[in-house]
């Protein structure tokens, strides 16, 4: 199963303490990796189809990027091929522009029906479940906002997620972020949220890696979702979990 990582903070931080741990704990996934972040309102993505581990070392580029990238929002994905091939264009995060924002998206999960979704505006033309899920969520969110412009982003996203798991039952976990807000959706497994001790900075780290990334499990809060016909959405901005909504 692919693994997801996100870091959100009130100011620019590097994830150099957490990304290598994320890589280490996801080393079984050998089909690529990616890091996405925001700088001056623009999205930047660095990704590779190579394994996150080469021998007993974290991929050299991943290590260097982890040290260098600083941003208020950093997303990362380590890939285990379930659909698509092992090539760089299939690595995540993915990005697209809609609703006046450039968005970053990364996904882990499985869905037979979801892969068949045909969007009027594909993000990439290749066969990739993550792209189909992103397109479905984007298209449905846009439809919601067009039909009812006064509703909140959360309401639109909640309806889109509900449609996703109803029309295409499956297991979905994704992070969707613009430069201000990070949404985390899950209808299976778990997302863990870490708020480090104060001296280590005002930030939140999220991951799908079981048990979290650090040796202080007490600082990890686990959000689990045993029933795939329902789901949860977390809203995060800066170092704050703002809202936890249940579908």
């Amino acid at each position, binding site marked *: 199963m692919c693994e997801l990582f996100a870091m959100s903070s*009130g*100011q620019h931080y590097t994830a150099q303490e957490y990304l290598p741990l994320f890589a280490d704990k996801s080393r079984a996934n050998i089909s690529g990796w990616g890091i996405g972040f925001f700088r001056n*309102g623009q999205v930047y993505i660095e990704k590779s189809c190579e394994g996150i581990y080469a021998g007993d070392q974290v991929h050299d580029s991943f290590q260097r990027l982890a040290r260098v990238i600083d941003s208020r929002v950093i997303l990362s994905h380590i890939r285990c091929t379930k659909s698509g091939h092992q090539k760089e264009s299939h690595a995540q995060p993915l990005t697209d522009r809609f*609703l*006046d*924002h450039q968005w970053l998206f990364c996904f882990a999960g499985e869905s037979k029906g979801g892969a068949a979704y045909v969007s009027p505006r594909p993000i990439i033309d290749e066969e990739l479940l993550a792209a189909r899920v992103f397109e479905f969520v984007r298209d449905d969110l846009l439809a919601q906002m067009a039909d009812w412009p*006064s*509703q*909140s*982003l*959360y*309401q639109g996203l909640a309806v889109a997620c509900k449609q996703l798991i109803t029309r295409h039952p499956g297991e979905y976990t994704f992070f969707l972020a*613009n*430069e*201000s*807000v990070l949404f985390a959706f899950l209808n299976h497994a778990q997302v863990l*949220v870490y*708020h480090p001790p*104060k001296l280590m900075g*005002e930030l*939140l780290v999220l991951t799908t890696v079981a048990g979290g990334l650090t040796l202080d499990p007490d600082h990890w*809060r686990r959000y689990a979702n045993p029933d795939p016909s329902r789901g949860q959405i*977390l*809203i995060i*901005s*800066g*170092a*704050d*979990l*703002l*809202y*936890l909504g249940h579908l």
Partner: protein
Amino acid sequence: MCDLFALCASQHYTAAASLPLFAVRGRQNVHGWGIGYFRRKQPVVEKSGEKVFQGGRLHGSFQRLARVVASPIILAHIRYKSSGQVDECHAHPFVLDFWGQSWIFAHNGKAPAIEPYVSRQAPALEAASDSARTFEFLRDRFVEAEPRRPSAPFLQVFKESLVQLIRQYPGQYNLLLTNGRFLWAFTNHRQLLLLKGSRKLEEALLLTTIEEGLSPENWQKIAAAEGTWGKILLLAGGDLVLTEDLEP
């Protein structure tokens, strides 16, 4: 009655078009004004006890600040006193720290019941008004809830605090609270008006309590639903991210 204004965008923005209109349309509020925003994570507040509009002209400083202040979130308040003196210290917005960050706060409405409230936390705000005590009350609840952070989402603590506030100190509360990255708005009287993508003003998300809005456009009116204690809005990145009813 005082009036509130906020601009919320994903990037730095000025409110050069909308702030002067806000002042003109809110000119019956004659007891001061204030503008608050964040610069490099630090709160900046410029305020005055003077009239925002006098002798047919906008206050010179207000006008200049409106042109110059640039931030993703800008708050403004025009005061008609219902409590406290008329001076700069009593003008809004106010600033307090909690949860490891600074917060800018502005309020309108009458809440005389909270005037005797004495905070156990430091610092206390210098102003002797219902608005200052309201902000301290909310700060105190967040300080008490800090050990639950981040397990308890911000909204949960905010709701608990507002329910306590209204239960213990019934009153009219329209308030804005921001840390520079996101903005919470609450209303339990009158209404809040929202507009995004204005063709006449800024394209950013605009919020005001001015009844007719700030332009002849389709302002969305948001008020407390019947049977609830109020409506909470979350604004960030130029979007209305969330709306929630405050249930008794």
